[in-house]
């Protein structure tokens, strides 16, 4: 995929922007062209949040993703809003703990990951975003698993470096999730 447009959407507080940052940093390490654009409305925990990420071999034009190749939907309102926007042949990754319905589209590959439940079981309840990220890496190869630790270390703020291992564990769980 030479020009991959990713849209990550969910509630504020689910780590939607952070998941985008991890992909962006990793893309940068892989010497790709990158853009990361958050929605910046009057967002708050519990409100909606989304984030456009472009990872490309060629210069990035508009940083706004309106027709994603990859949609990561972390809640039902986001899936309802963006399912139809996904490019034909693209991917949708659905947190099936929070989104009970199946996709309507038949021209995209849809992956259902009970990420919120998996995160609870792993005792990292705030890291459903990283579980989703792991699965995206596995299925799309948009970024590589190798060297992810370095990219993650740059994304995690200095005072939260102790959470690095937990984040890696969550990514691994998503990467290895069969479903």
């Amino acid at each position, binding site marked *: 995929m030479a020009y991959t447009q990713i849209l990550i959407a969910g509630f504020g507080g689910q780590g939607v922007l952070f998941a985008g*940052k991890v992909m962006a940093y990793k893309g940068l390490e892989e010497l790709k062209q990158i853009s990361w654009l958050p929605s910046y409305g009057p967002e708050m925990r519990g409100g909606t949040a989304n984030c456009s990420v472009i990872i490309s071999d060629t210069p990035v034009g508009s940083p*706004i993703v309106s027709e994603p190749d990859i949609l990561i939907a972390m809640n039902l309102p986001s899936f309802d809003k963006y399912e139809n926007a996904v490019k034909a042949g693209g991917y949708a990754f659905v947190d099936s703990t929070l989104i009970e319905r199946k996709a309507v589209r038949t021209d995209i590959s849809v992956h259902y990951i009970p990420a919120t439940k998996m995160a609870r079981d792993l005792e990292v309840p705030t890291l459903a975003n990283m579980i989703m990220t792991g699965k995206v890496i596995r299925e799309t190869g948009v970024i590589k698993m190798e060297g992810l630790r370095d990219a993650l270390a740059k994304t995690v703020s200095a005072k939260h470096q102790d959470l690095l291992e937990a984040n890696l564990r969550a990514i691994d769980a998503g990467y290895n999730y069969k479903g």
Partner: protein
Amino acid sequence: MAKVLMKGNEAIAEAAIRAGCRHYFGYPITPQTEIAAYMAKRMPKIGGTFLQAESEISAINMVYGVASAGRRAMTSSSSPGVSLKQEGISYLAGSDLPALIVNVQRGGPGLGGIQPSQSDYFQATKGGGHGDYHLIVLAPASVQEMADLTVKAFDLADKYRMPSMLLADGTIGQMMEPVELPEETDGSGVEKPWAVTGTENKREHNIINSLYLVPEQLEVKNLERYERYKIVEQNEVMYEEYMTEDADICVVAFGIAARVSKNAITAAREKGIKAGLIRPITLWPFPTEAIAKAAEKVKGFISVELSMGQMIDDIKLAEGCKKPVALCSRVGGMIPSPEQVLAAIEKAERGEF
């Protein structure tokens, strides 16, 4: 140097510090608050001054003070806050002081919204404050340019003794892209013999002032200033041309609108339509000659803006009304989609403007 991933707003702040700016005065407003936050964190560690003023008006006048002493100073805000600064900006211009004002625009008028806009084009390029004056206005279209043009804005301001403005928008301010940060300087490249730094009884007093009650003197000041503006117009125009060599349709857009337009131009080319882009990097001085030259070859122009049509006037003046100029825009915090711009290009190709 390795590239780092940074928000546009942070890139402005870091680049300003690297350009030797040690005095930042501001007042928070979305979508540019990261600039102030970055300065608040960094300035105390490097012996600089970060001061959150009680208002935008105070902040710009603090900039006036530091600029008078010959040091690099800046303030940043977003549209409503920049309106408040206009009196101070006019005084800076009237006192021939270099300083940087950053406007990360949001939708207006009034308090407007917090989403991106380019509707302060007139304010930035045609005055904004009272009196005859210009600012050097730079319009970044990437996080890299947020950094590079911040340095450039300080350099040009010092060189020509006039305030400069970085006219960005909420999108470029909030987005992250890889950026190669500029080299560090102490910002003392230009001599400032006019600065009020204390005479030590060795020279005459320097006076920084914009009050001239004798009209003959005030006229001379204005005429001198416009001689300088003429040199700026001759020497400092910056723009990017993209696929214009054989273009029939010339899109003109700056900042985020130019990014969207590039997507549309790529799509138009795939359909066999010869579209190209002139992207003004300096909005004042405006790339008049480049537009005039394009007017000799193209069927017409499309001005893509996040406003009701402001830059379009400068395009028409530049091309001398030889060719039609269409407007393609969204306002109020909305951004035109590449599809909307493509539709405008296809319409123009059919001769409809």
